[in-house]
């Protein structure tokens, strides 16, 4: 019986497997059909909309009345053999031969570089004609080897993925669970053979077996057991059968572990731990500040100002603590905002005054930045446990001032002094979370906080702040540490005035130095983050020979920072330090050249060194090239040298990926790869912009230059000479001003060799 069972299981597994696979296939084709119809719907809808729009301005190719279309040559007469029919005379039209268009591959438009990850599997085996395959079959093999033999959609006969495996096990498990309800004997056999490994189900197992041995009336225990079994772990035989059938998938235990792992993930009731409830939603919880801002902080890209940007997100997750002093420009209020302002409360004024004074005195005396939260914390810790609540006071001077503050603040207002109705105000989760968020920004400016909260008066906010601080003190080890002093922000003491002069005297030499030693290798910029350390040799910016940018975590007076230019001209000569350093002017650094003028003031910007970041490209037109394939033509005149034409955009890929892709491109004899820096390559094959159609020429009218634009390397195409409207654009693929840029492909290999 047992052996028969085994065979039965094996057969069942196979049956189930094929059924599932078929089901999958149907499902997939259904999905495709569904997607197809949906896309068609979208297309027709869009077409209708387009038609609507263009109904009145529709312009089609119209014939003109010049003689080009006149049928002057001859009339064509079609004579009818049937006598009664008239001969039909038609004017003869000359049909001009229409030149065939060059081959055009699909590509996706893009106006900014797009970072993609390395492809670990070969997505398709490139087809280059039968000849290539015939004479160079080794190429494909080598290619596949590059991807460790992984080819997309590779399906072997016994291929089984996780999803399928899970469904298979569950399907079989259901069958095994159903069986007892139908046939008691087989259920017995199954449950006897079944050995439940899951400890949580062991009790159920015992119940089940005991029920079986007791042989109770079949109705209730069977239902019970089946209900239990549906959540229980599937029996062993299933796994053995599967392991038999797919020997490459591992042993029985492996399969079981995998199953466990998969089911755990699938459990719908497990809450993702990091997810805070919607702050606008009904179940908003009172969470600490970091939780409330977690998603925003995690996803925001400091460099693109976007959430989850597709250029830096793969490589760069910034820590949040930037140098924020200049942004915190809201001082504590001195006047009451309205009739029932918290300042009118007893003691509140002193409280406020104390904080503002302490902060200003601190800033004046030792130029150290310290968020006023500290003061708030200190101010409220009249119980004397303040030193305990602030575990890391970095300098003795700091602690000294704090102690003096403590002494001063000992007579400040406490929560107990406030009127009862203020203390009893109900604060819901969202409000309290928001308060914590805002409190760090606005400190003791409770008027501003209440204005932003909108639902609470400043008196209530004040009361809540007092309550908050007291609760924080009572549990110092918890979230209270969050409100304490941030050591990073206290680290660097600026000596601003003196430094700046030195900076300027230094920086020309520095640039020269950079040019000397980093001529061959330009590395990608990564914002540095080394709290407590000045930018020395351990800093990655310094190590890679990059300047620190405004995105770095180092203080703004870091000696490795690029100071920007002070040109009053167009910044298009080497007089401009930015231009000399192959950088575009930074709108936040260079203010003299007008790089900081935007919008309606854009005409005030005399700087010509901001073209890439502002996207001031020329209008380009696509047409079949005079040289080969497609070409790109310029629509307007270019008046001089070094004018910006367009940015060469594409996918940013790693050098390794470029090597892999380049093998295929070289075979195609058509490559859109462009070395960006030592780490990355721009590939415009799949995504790009129109300049990708520019052809190669040894006598070009354009050149390419990799520029540092706000921390990113970007490729600008500039004019070599004045270009007339309608000219085709060429640039030299082989080399350019910066040596690092090489036409990827043959030359790179030559370089390596």
């Amino acid at each position, binding site marked *: 019986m047992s052996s028969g069972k085994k065979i039965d299981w094996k057969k069942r597994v196979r049956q189930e497997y094929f059924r599932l696979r078929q089901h999958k296939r149907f499902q997939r084709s259904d999905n495709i059909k569904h997607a197809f119809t949906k896309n068609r719907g979208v297309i027709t809808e869009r077409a209708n909309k387009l038609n609507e729009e263009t109904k009145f301005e529709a312009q089609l190719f119209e014939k003109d009345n010049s003689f080009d279309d006149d049928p002057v040559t001859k009339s064509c007469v079609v004579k009818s053999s049937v006598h009664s029919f008239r001969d039909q005379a038609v004017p003869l039209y000359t049909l001009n031969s229409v030149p065939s268009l060059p081959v055009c591959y699909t590509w996706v438009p893009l106006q900014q570089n797009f970072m993609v990850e390395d492809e670990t599997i070969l997505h398709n085996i490139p087809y280059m004609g039968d000849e290539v395959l015939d004479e160079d079959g080794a190429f494909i093999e080598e290619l596949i080897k590059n991807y460790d033999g992984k080819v997309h959609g590779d399906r072997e006969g016994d291929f089984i993925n996780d999803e399928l495996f899970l469904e298979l096990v569950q399907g079989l498990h259901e069958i095994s669970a159903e069986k007892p309800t139908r046939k008691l004997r087989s259920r017995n056999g199954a449950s006897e053979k079944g050995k439940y490994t899951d400890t949580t189900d062991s009790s159920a197992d015992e119940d089940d077996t005991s029920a079986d041995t007791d042989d109770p009336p079949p109705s209730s225990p069977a239902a019970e057991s089946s209900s239990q079994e549906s959540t229980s772990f599937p029996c062993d035989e299933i796994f053995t059968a599967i392991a038999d059938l797919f020997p490459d998938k591992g042993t029985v235990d492996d399969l079981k572990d995998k199953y466990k792992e998969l089911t755990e993930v699938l459990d719908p009731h497990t809450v993702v731990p990091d997810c805070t409830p919607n702050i606008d939603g009904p179940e908003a919880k009172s969470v600490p500040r970091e939780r409330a801002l977690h998603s925003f902080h995690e996803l925001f890209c400091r460099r693109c*100002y976007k959430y989850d940007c597709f250029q830096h997100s793969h490589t760069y997750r910034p820590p949040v603590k930037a140098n924020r002093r200049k942004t915190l420009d809201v001082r504590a209020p001195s006047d009451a905002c309205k009739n029932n302002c918290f300042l009118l409360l007893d003691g509140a004024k002193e409280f406020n005054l104390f904080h503002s004074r302490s902060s200003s005195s601190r800033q004046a005396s030792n130029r150290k930045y310290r968020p006023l939260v500290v003061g708030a914390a200190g101010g409220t810790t009249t119980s004397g446990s303040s030193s305990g609540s602030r575990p890391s006071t970095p300098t003795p001077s700091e602690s000294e001032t704090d102690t003096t503050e403590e002494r001063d603040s000992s007579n400040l207002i406490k929560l107990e002094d406030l009127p009862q109705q203020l203390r009893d105000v109900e604060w819901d989760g969202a409000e309290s979370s928001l308060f914590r968020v805002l409190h760090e920004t606005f400190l003791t400016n409770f008027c501003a906080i209440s204005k932003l909260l909108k639902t609470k008066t400043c008196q209530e906010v004040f009361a809540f702040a007092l309550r908050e601080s007291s609760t924080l003190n009572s549990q110092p080890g918890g979230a209270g540490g969050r409100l304490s002093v941030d050591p990073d922000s206290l680290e660097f003491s600026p000596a601003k005035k003196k430094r700046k002069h030195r900076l300027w005297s230094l920086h020309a030499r520095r640039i020269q130095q950079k040019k000397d030693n980093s001529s061959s290798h330009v590395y990608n910029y990564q914002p540095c983050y080394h709290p407590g350390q000045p930018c020395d040799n351990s800093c990655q910016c310094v190590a890679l020979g990059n300047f620190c940018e405004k995105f770095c975590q180092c203080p703004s007076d870091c000696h490795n920072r690029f100071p920007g230019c002070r040109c009053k001209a167009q910044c298009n000569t080497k007089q401009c330090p930015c231009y000399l350093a192959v950088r575009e002017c930074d709108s936040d650094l260079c203010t003299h050249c007008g790089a900081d003028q935007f919008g309606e003031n854009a005409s005030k910007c005399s700087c010509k060194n901001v073209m890439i970041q502002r996207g001031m490209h020329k209008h380009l037109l696509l047409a079949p090239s005079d040289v080969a394939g497609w070409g790109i033509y310029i629509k307007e005149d270019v008046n001089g040298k070094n004018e910006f034409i367009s940015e060469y955009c594409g996918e940013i890929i790693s050098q390794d990926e470029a090597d892999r892709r380049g093998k295929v491109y070289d075979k195609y004899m058509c490559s859109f790869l462009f070395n960006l820096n030592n780490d990355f390559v721009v590939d415009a094959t799949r995504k790009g912009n129109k300049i990708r159609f520019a052809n190669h020429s040894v006598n070009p009218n354009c050149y390419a230059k990799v520029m540092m634009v706000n921390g990113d390397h970007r490729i600008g195409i500039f004019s070599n000479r004045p270009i007339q409207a309608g000219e085709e654009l060429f640039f030299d693929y082989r080399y350019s001003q910066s040596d690092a840029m090489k036409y990827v492909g043959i030359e790179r290999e030559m370089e390596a060799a």
Partner: protein
Amino acid sequence: MPRPKKIDKQRKEDVVPDLRQDREEFLRMFEKPTQIYRFLRARHCISPTFLHRSLLYMLKRNSRTHARRQKFKVGDMLEACITKQSTDKLLPQQQYDQLKILVLGFCIDPGVRSENNVGRKFSSLETQVSLRKTHRCRRKDGESSHTEELVGITDTPINPRNVDAYEEDPLYLSTTHMYQTGDGTSVKNYSLVFRVYESNDNESESESDFSDSDNSDNWSDGPGGRKRKRKEDDPAGISLKNLTTGTRRRRTIHDDDKQDDDDDEEPVNGSSKKFKKNHNEKSCTLTTNAVYEAELVMFNSEKQLFLSDGEYELSLTRTKSEGVGRKRNATWEALDGGRDIELLSTMNSAPVLKFKLCWSANEKPGPLSASENGDTKNATSDEPETKRMRRRPSVKTNAASETNGDTDKPNTLPVELVEYRKSKLQSATFPKGDRDEDSVMSEDKVLVYYQFIYNSETQQQTEAREDLFCPWCQLNCMTLYGLIKHLKLCHPRFNFTYSPQQHGSCIEVSVNECYDGSYCGNPQFIFAQPGMAFSRRGPVHRIEVTDTLVYRPRRERRCANLALAELLEKEENDASPTAHYTAGHHRLYFHSRNAVPIRPCEFEGDSEDEADPDWLRAYTKRMLDEFTDVNEGEKPVMKLWNLYIMKNWWGCIADAQLFSSCRTFLDLYGPLIARHSLRNNLLLHFVTLVDFGVLKASALISLMEHFDHVASTVTPISPKRELADDIAQADMELQLLPALPDQPRAGSRAKRVSVGDTKMGSMDFYEHNMSSQVDRLHAIINHAETKPQSQ
């Protein structure tokens, strides 16, 4: 084909054995381009693209001066009309009462002959000219009765090769009585009737003659069907004939004298024959096989004179049909700007009688040769200016309107010859393509040798012409300079090298091997769909395409003296770097996404101006959706912000910009955020910006104030709408809206124009655009229930 043939004939004596091969060589080189230029010439006559007289090097052709314009008064027009009327009435009555009719020849087109009777050959023809009087009828409904007076009968050559040879047999018609309006009440109008009789007696000589001329006709008809409409202007027949015969005859009044001289000098071709004047009436009845007939109205009932001096071609119709009736030819559709081309085909299909009319005073002609000279002289001197017809731009079917159009001022209109041709079915007039030669030019003998160089510059054939007509398009270029310029510019398939010679000038002609015969018109037309011609609604955008101007050489002098020296040195510095070629003026551009030709209306739009293609918008939304630990309140704010940044990414390239960007963001999306009550998330978003140090805390306060202001106008959401739908719709709307003009491109555009104005302009535009955007978005978001509120 015939041209080489002619040349062969000339050279027949010299090189007999090489003849055939030589001819083939010549043919191969010059036949195709010549045919093409013949064709183009014909086309230009039908639908001209430009006027020759407006060309710089053809200034002589423009005889109109603008001097009169400066002292123009409105009263002048009336005066002109009055003088014209008075002269109209007076002049014809006073003087011209004798009409000399000179029948030049009878031309049969191959098309007609093949249709009627292919094999038959006409031997000799007689033309009977009679005057038909249409009598006024008493009863109005009755048919008007005709009476005919025979004027004369003359022998007519068939397909004459050289029309000048038959000048000696004029018929005279006295018209004195026709002017008498008072008593001649019974006669309604006078018309000339031409009847051509065919006689059967075959002479061997004429037969051979006929075959010869047949040939010449054959080839001159060539591929272009309309070529024959005017013998004078026919680029094919005449040009080649003239090339071969050496001189070019002009039937103008002014150079009649000279022509006579030319006649004497010129060797008469073998085919010329003398025909006797025959007054015998019975001859017409004797041998009539086929009678062709045509009528030409002389005077209408108002006694207006329709005929003036000049050469006429009259298309004849058959009166007595024998055998199969004349089939209707394939007709042309009137595609040519509404002109009736059937008239032209009439000229093609029907046989044509050529004759010449000449008015003279009422003197009985003396001896033929003497009187002719005298007559023509007379006629020339006395020719009233009012007789001259203005060139009419369009063909009118009604002949009566012909004379009414004669409104030209006598002293401004140059001497101009007008040819008339009339068919019996429809009388029509045609403008004469060429003006008269300048008398000055015709005085000194111009001799232009054309040297055709072929067979890789080893052989040459020379032809000489005595005038300055372009051999290919019969254009009178008036000056040698103009001629060579014309040749060089209008016939690029040939190379022309000019060199002055002792007795004239020599132009070397060779085939331009470098000529690029590819299509050089508007590239849009190549892709034009034939069915689209009628789907035009209103004015449309045209792409800037130059159709005719390709080469723009630098012009040193302004036409003060168009010196021939310029042409001489031309050859060397032709490839000078100063030559300014307009590149790509007729290139067809394509959309980069789908390789569809760019239509003119789409030409200005740059697809790269939008930085956020559809897929990227969808992508960023999807990427955010994929996060599991980002809650449903954060996602929409992030999405909206991302979409906004992507739309205006130039609006967020610096920290300094962020505040204004956020404000705009609130203007656009504030209502949406308020409707879905995402205020706290928005606040968190701004706090994040502050945390990252890109926004100031004070800015945060003012932004939230702004948001509250925006939100105060929005009612909280009443029907629960899917947030995702709302975002999608807002996204779509944002996509449709034009990009904000404060982007850098606008700035760069403004730089080009003067600073002050554009700054204002662009700012106005910005604000206007901004508010309209906001309005639209409000309208979308608020649906119908809330009123869109403008900022």
